[in-house]
């Protein structure tokens, strides 16, 4: 069988985000099992392990599942990812950190077993800036942008890119850290109220998101000018602020809503059959879709690997090869019942990061829905490429890693 560990977190401070993602990830595989009998005839076994967003538990989960022939890890935590990169590499198991984790892992030359397609944090940062450029007719010189970020490895990721971009485009960047868990942000928002930046970008997770949206509403910061990273753009992040959150934006690398044929299958084979991973009430939410998307990409990589190696019960090593040769096309997605769900792209040995296309979502408080307001657009490869090369180069030097390709 095909073993997919799911290092999920359904408890702890970040459960609200962990639950829908884990549900989506699990439900897609359940659907494949129910509908197709697995992938290429090989049944799928999902091994869920609760991490509580805690690195030690993550290690325990990794160690206890890797022996079962785990094909790919998707830990949904930057901390655990950093943990697993060396271990999994040594064990020859691939890791997929979709839109999180170590950005410079996009360099497949150094990080042979780590993949972060289709987009990473630096794409995200650049995507935000591009969007602002676009809405300002290409000129944001002299504009003030405040970055409210989670004071952790995760939150610090975009800073360097944004700094580079601010040099390039002449905007003024002000970074405001918020400590875990982020319940108290009065100081940061008073400062924003004083400084009156033109835009506020938020890089948050967990309760920090709700509080930020609420505080922004409190100081009546115009929501149109408030943009979150893709981890700050789920329904629960904005719901508690009510109408005041209307117009808040967040970037994304995949589509939203449940308007895709695949959801009919999910409903039929999973939810209605009583096999949903969670309560079944998350279907179609932003993070559910992201989990679903991650599962779909994994399943496609399995198919690729099966084709490459001519076996159905693939090994982690073969899975890695499959991921490296993964190609997602419009036709493929349409065939899966997910037309235009995400960008089409192709992974290569050098580039584990995918195309880095970034779209923008906007929240409509009246209908309580997110909708895509800007298509998936390319990001500043020049700046990002240089940064990736620099950071991965340092890692390679420190750990004496030979080029992989």
């Amino acid at each position: 069988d095909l073993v997919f560990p799911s290092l999920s977190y359904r408890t702890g401070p970040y459960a609200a985000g962990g639950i829908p993602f884990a549900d989506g990830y699990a439900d897609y595989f359940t659907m494949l099992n129910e509908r197709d009998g697995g992938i290429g005839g090989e049944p799928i076994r999902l091994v869920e392990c609760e991490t509580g967003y805690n690195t030690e538990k993550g290690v325990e989960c990794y160690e206890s599942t890797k022996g079962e022939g785990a094909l790919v890890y998707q830990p949904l935590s930057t901390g655990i990812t950093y943990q697993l990169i060396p271990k999994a590499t040594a064990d020859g198991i691939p890791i997929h950190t979709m839109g999180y984790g170590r950005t410079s892992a996009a360099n497949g030359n150094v990080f042979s077993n780590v993949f972060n397609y289709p987009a990473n944090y630096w794409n995200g940062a650049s995507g935000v800036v591009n969007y602002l450029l676009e809405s300002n007719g290409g000129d944001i010189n002299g504009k003030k942008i405040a970055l409210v970020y989670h004071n952790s490895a995760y939150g610090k990721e975009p800073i360097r890119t944004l700094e580079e971009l601010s040099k390039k485009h002449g905007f003024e960047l002000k970074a405001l850290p918020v400590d875990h868990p982020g319940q108290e942000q009065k100081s940061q928002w008073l400062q924003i109220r004083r400084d009156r930046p033109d835009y506020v970008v938020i890089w948050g997770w967990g309760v920090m998101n709700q509080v930020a949206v609420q505080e922004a509403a409190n100081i009546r910061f115009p929501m149109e000018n408030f943009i979150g990273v893709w981890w700050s753009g789920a329904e629960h992040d904005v719901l508690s602020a009510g109408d005041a959150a209307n117009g808040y934006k967040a970037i994304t690398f995949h589509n939203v809503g449940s308007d895709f044929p695949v959801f009919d299958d999910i409903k039929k084979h999973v939810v209605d059959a009583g096999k949903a991973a969670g309560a079944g009430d998350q279907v179609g939410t932003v993070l559910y879709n992201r989990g679903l998307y991650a599962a779909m990409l994994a399943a496609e990589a399995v198919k690729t690997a099966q084709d490459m190696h001519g076996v159905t019960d693939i090994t982690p090593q073969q899975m890695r090869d499959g991921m490296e040769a993964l190609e997602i096309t419009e036709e493929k997605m349409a065939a899966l019942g997910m037309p235009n769900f995400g960008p089409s792209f192709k992974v290569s040995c050098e580039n584990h990061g995918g195309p880095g296309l970034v779209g923008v979502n906007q929240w409509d408080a009246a209908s309580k829905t997110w909708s895509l307001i800007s298509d998936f657009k390319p990001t500043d490869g020049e700046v990002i490429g240089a940064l990736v090369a620099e950071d991965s180069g340092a890692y390679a030097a420190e750990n004496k890693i030979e080029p992989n390709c």
Partner: protein
Amino acid sequence: MFYREAGDFKISYTQDNQTFPIRFDRYRYYAVMIFAFAVVPFLINDYWANAIMLPFLIYAIAAIGLNILTGYCGQVSLGTGGFMAVGAYACYKLMTAFPDVSMFIHVLLAGGITALVGVLFGLPSLRIKGFYLAVATLAAQFFLVWLFNRVPWFYNYSASGQINAPERDVFGIIITGPNAPAWATYLFCLIFLTLCALIARNLTRGTVGRKWMAIRDMDIAAEIIGVNPLKAKMTAFAVSSFFVGISGALFFAVYLGAVEVGEVFGIQKSFLVLFMVIIGGLGSIFGSFAGAAFLVLLPVVLKVVGADMLGWPTDIVAHLQLVIVGALIIVFLIMEPHGLAQLWRVAKEKLRLWPFPH
């Protein structure tokens, strides 16, 4: 009956001062040591090492450290996480600055540096006592974490602020990094734990230990009969932090390999180690082992039983795990407020009297 000490005579005070004055205990101790050093390394695999033994060994070191401060010297500290972070970052800086020096030295030095920091943050204990001190040590906890997060020098200017343990060795055997064999990491930590336990035992049975306990039990009386409170408390902070620093260094370098300070060495860690000490038994070295084992193993066992064997949803298992751990803590306290160590002592006393009830 089952547990004998009759016929076990001591003819000198030196003998009476032994760590295990009772022969039966002594043999059991030798057996455990032989098993741990000579048998386990051949059996151990990645899972046992990384998921169970390493955390157990390392937490046991931290628990011994905190037990010295809290259990023996009576100074409740919630800064353990912060001090572990000092050990980890000191070790990291040393490892990257002197790649050719043995890991053994690095870890010891990391402990030493932590001891200095510990003394610094221990100073307020001269005036502040009890729970006030406990809360005051949180200042150290939060400040240290903030500092390591804030000052890029500590994490060698890496983009994310994470630190990663590069590959290092002891006498050519790789100890850190992903290629370290399970048995080597296990033995490395075991050696440190053994050393720490021996030192702790020696200190606590001698003058230093008695000074600590005197301060703990009644600080005013202690001062009046001649204990210099400043010195006693500061040595406790130093020794305790030394151990905690070692555990932090091992935690980072050998166990996790990569660390994000706020997440790994946050306040939760301080609480966790404190729980270990209290559940195990304040003022007992054996208790530190028991507490660490209990809190490392219990969640794993519950997870294995609930999720793997019974196949319940992981979230329900995780919640039940909280419920059960919480309930067990309470039940233990009601049964025996002085921890597993005391439970063990009472059991021994009962065995000694067996089959008579008193």
